């Protein structure tokens, strides 16, 4: 089968996400790879929301560019999305709600009217049940078998029984059968492709990865698009033995996490740019006191409140510079839920090994959208054990002992004879302040420099622990694409499309952002004919970082800050333009 994309749209509160997730799970249980995009606005009722599930036997890395089946719960959905319909595409709607005339749709597409309200009325006066009927019809056109759909619906109700479950099963079967009698499956309809796959959002993958890495304490304040990390961990808190604390604000959240880490458990906080801005001072405290800490920063459109439900990669500068003064940190930016699962584990390993904060940079596009993973790709069989702690050494314990790596033996409260004071002031090897009566006295001036250097020497180890970027495609390709974090997905899909147009491409996919693996990136870009930097921000923040760290200047840029994720065709268009007008 070729790939298929199903989109459902309507008003917030219509239950679009449930319809979309049922379709996405239909595909993933058929063994297909899926990318699920949940597009919504900052309202609880009204507005326009839509969900897209794109499926293929091969891995798909983005939402793609077109729609094969569109389920429209309102007329607005037709107006907004009909233009994206592919040749042979189908619009499913209820003629009782609104009309769709021939001229409303692109040539080569078809409209399928389904009496979803009428079906719903058979069971209840609650019109929300129309979704189940529409879902049934959509599943039929998309190639999802009725039995599978019914199983997914039943599972979504969990242990619930009763008339609501029966109504949903009945209405979806009616919708399915109506479409079967009055229409035909899409020519792109899904075909079974093997064992079921797992479908995870980026945030679920981060939460799972953190738990696998030994997370015991999460403190968080609700903020889109980071909140679902807290939701998943809270739902599994008792089962996994992880304390989940909703704090009074982000200041409390990060300080609680630092306290818990100092107290001897692996800790994390998660937020978006606004909350992270509040956390900045405590991030520096973690760096200064050398307390391991993982902070998830899931970016959304800024500045300020910006577009709270839309994506962006605009906080890289903030993450690089967060905190007064200088202290060692690492920034990881996974591209895909599988990557996010592994990056979360790596973040904990680095934070613990180097006793310093590690930032996990996500964004709304990665955090809240869904992608498939094979069960075999997720390894839970790792035992992180308790946090490693110092051995008693007869009374001369130095928490901040000078070492070549910059990493000193760490004790935690409760260990006899190894007491120390974690100080946000500058301190000596034993943790004694040198900030007040000693400051400025020559011997302590030298000590300050020595202690500063000790901390910063961790950057060397962190740099060695950074993975080089994944390089995909031939050296000397027509165009070399450079992308980081979630933008890598659209760039990957663009490569396939460009290949079909006879344009060869190479992708340099950066997930370990800082410290910059400069040599590896330099090698990857050495033979590049034309380079294109792709970033979801105004100023090309990664490009500036790369230039500052390596001197490499990427002059061609595709930058986006409209709140939307990159679409593969946008990258294709730019690459075609670069290769067609003789520019190098």
């Amino acid at each position: 089968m070729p790939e298929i994309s199903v989109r459902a749209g309507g008003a917030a509160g219509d239950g679009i996400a449930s319809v979309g997730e049922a379709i996405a799970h239909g595909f993933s249980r058929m063994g297909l790879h899926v990318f699920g995009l949940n597009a919504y606005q900052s309202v609880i009722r009204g507005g326009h929301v839509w969900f897209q599930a794109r499926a293929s036997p091969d891995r798909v890395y983005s939402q793609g560019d077109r729609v094969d089946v569109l389920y429209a719960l309102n007329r607005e959905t037709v107006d907004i999305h009909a233009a994206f319909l592919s040749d042979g595409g189908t619009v499913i709607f209820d003629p009782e709600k609104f009309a769709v005339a021939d001229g409303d749709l692109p040539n080569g597409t078809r409209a399928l009217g389904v009496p979803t309200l009428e079906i719903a009325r058979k069971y209840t006066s609650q019109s929300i049940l129309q979704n189940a009927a529409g879902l049934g019809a959509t599943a039929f056109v998309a190639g999802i078998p009725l039995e599978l759909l019914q199983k997914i619906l039943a599972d979504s109700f969990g242990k619930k029984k009763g008339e609501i479950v029966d109504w949903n099963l009945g209405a979806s079967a009616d919708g399915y059968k109506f479409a079967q009698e009055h229409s035909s499956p899409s020519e792109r309809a899904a075909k079974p492709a093997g064992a079921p796959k797992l479908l995870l959002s980026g945030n679920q993958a981060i939460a799972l990865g953190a738990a696998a890495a030994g997370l015991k304490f999460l403190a968080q304040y609700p903020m889109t698009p980071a909140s679902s990390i807290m939701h998943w961990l809270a739902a599994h808190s008792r089962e996994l033995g992880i304390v989940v604390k909703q704090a009074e604000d982000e200041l409390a959240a990060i300080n609680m996490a630092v306290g818990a880490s100092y107290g001897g458990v692996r800790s994390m906080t998660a937020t978006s740019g606004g909350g992270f801005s509040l956390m900045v001072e405590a991030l520096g405290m973690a760096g200064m006191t050398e307390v391991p800490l993982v902070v998830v920063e899931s970016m959304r459109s800024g500045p300020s409140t910006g577009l709270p439900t839309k994506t962006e990669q605009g906080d890289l500068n903030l993450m690089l510079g967060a905190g007064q003064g200088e202290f060692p940190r690492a920034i990881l930016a996974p591209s895909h839920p599988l990557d996010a699962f592994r990056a979360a584990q790596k973040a904990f390993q680095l934070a613990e090994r180097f006793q310093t904060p590690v930032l996990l940079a996500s964004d709304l596009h990665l955090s809240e959208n869904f992608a498939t993973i094979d069960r075999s790709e997720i390894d839970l069989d790792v035992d992180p054990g308790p946090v490693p702690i110092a051995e008693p050494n007869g009374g001369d314990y130095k928490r901040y002992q000078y070492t070549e790596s910059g990493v000193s033996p760490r004790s935690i409260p409760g260990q006899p004879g190894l007491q120390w004071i974690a100080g946000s002031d500058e301190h000596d090897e034993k943790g004694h302040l040198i900030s007040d009566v000693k400051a400025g006295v020559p011997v302590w001036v030298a000590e300050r420099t020595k202690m500063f250097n000790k901390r910063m020497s961790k950057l060397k180890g962190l740099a060695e622990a950074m993975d080089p970027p994944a390089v995909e495609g031939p050296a000397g390709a027509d165009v070399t694409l450079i992308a980081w974090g979630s933008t890598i997905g659209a760039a990957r899909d663009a490569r396939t499309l460009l290949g079909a147009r006879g344009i060869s491409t190479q992708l340099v996919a950066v997930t370990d952002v800082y410290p910059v693996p400069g040599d590896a990136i330099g090698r990857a870009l050495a033979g590049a004919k034309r380079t294109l930097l792709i970033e979801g921000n105004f100023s090309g923040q990664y490009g500036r970082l790369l230039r500052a760290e390596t001197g490499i200047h990427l002059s061609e840029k595709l930058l986006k800050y409209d709140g939307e994720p990159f679409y593969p065709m946008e990258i294709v268009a730019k690459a075609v333009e670069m290769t067609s007008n003789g520019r190098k």
Partner: protein
Amino acid sequence: MAESSAALAPPIVGTPLPLIGKSDTKPTWCPGCGDFSVVAAVELAVKRLKIPSHDVVIVSGIGCSSNLPHFLSSYGFHGIHGRALPIAEGIRWANHGLTVIATGGDGDGFGIGAGHFVHTMRRNVDLTYVTMDNQIYGLTTGQASPTSMLGHKTKSTPTGVIENPIDPIALALASGATYVARAFSGDVKHMADLVAGGIQHKGFAFVDALSPCVTYNKINTFDWFRQRVYKLESAGHDPTNIVAAWQRALEWGDKIPIGLFYRTEKPTYEELEEVLTAGPLAKQPTGLKGKDALLDEFE
């Protein structure tokens, strides 16, 4: 509390565990500062309860008084301005076998940290919070604080404070604190009794220590307080009576009550957080080994 279960290594048999004492760092406070009494009271209280020094964590923010953890031999965390309480909560939840004492000033606790103060009390986290309340910003050389009295002329208020002061005792009562006391640096023994009572109390214990700044506050001096303070326990106050506690909390002027305003028993956050009923978090298993069924929900 004295039988702490926090230790991560077994005690050395036959050797008494070291009790808290002074560290090798000498306090840097001005001679005559009220905070000397507070560090002495904390030391006395912890010693009296025989809690081993390695099972005690003293947490502070920033300010003159927040240097306190450095002067004792326990574990400590000298954090950032206003954040002592969330750090202390994190430590408690990581290992609730530990005795956690948060210390700091009035600016730290009732100004920049006021939000945390209220929320920590409503949670009834089992820790003891001792504020060294001198009604002035000392370390920044004398600006008005949230507890500076109306009319107080400071560097930042040259014509006098025009905001009503926060009443920490009333705020604590309103926020659901389960142990609310006020002490005075002019009576170390009394303060030590109140701190020890707070440590023994199951739940959030608040001790607002009136601790005069001898350099920057020329109004609320030791003498000023000595003329005004009286002990609640000598005045027939019933600390289990919330209405009486409110009445006493509102007294500030010619008569200033010190002692225990209120005490009640409520479940602590640590008792209500189910995960912690399995023991200190730091001693619980980690990771997801053998939990593959967790992935089923994603299918």
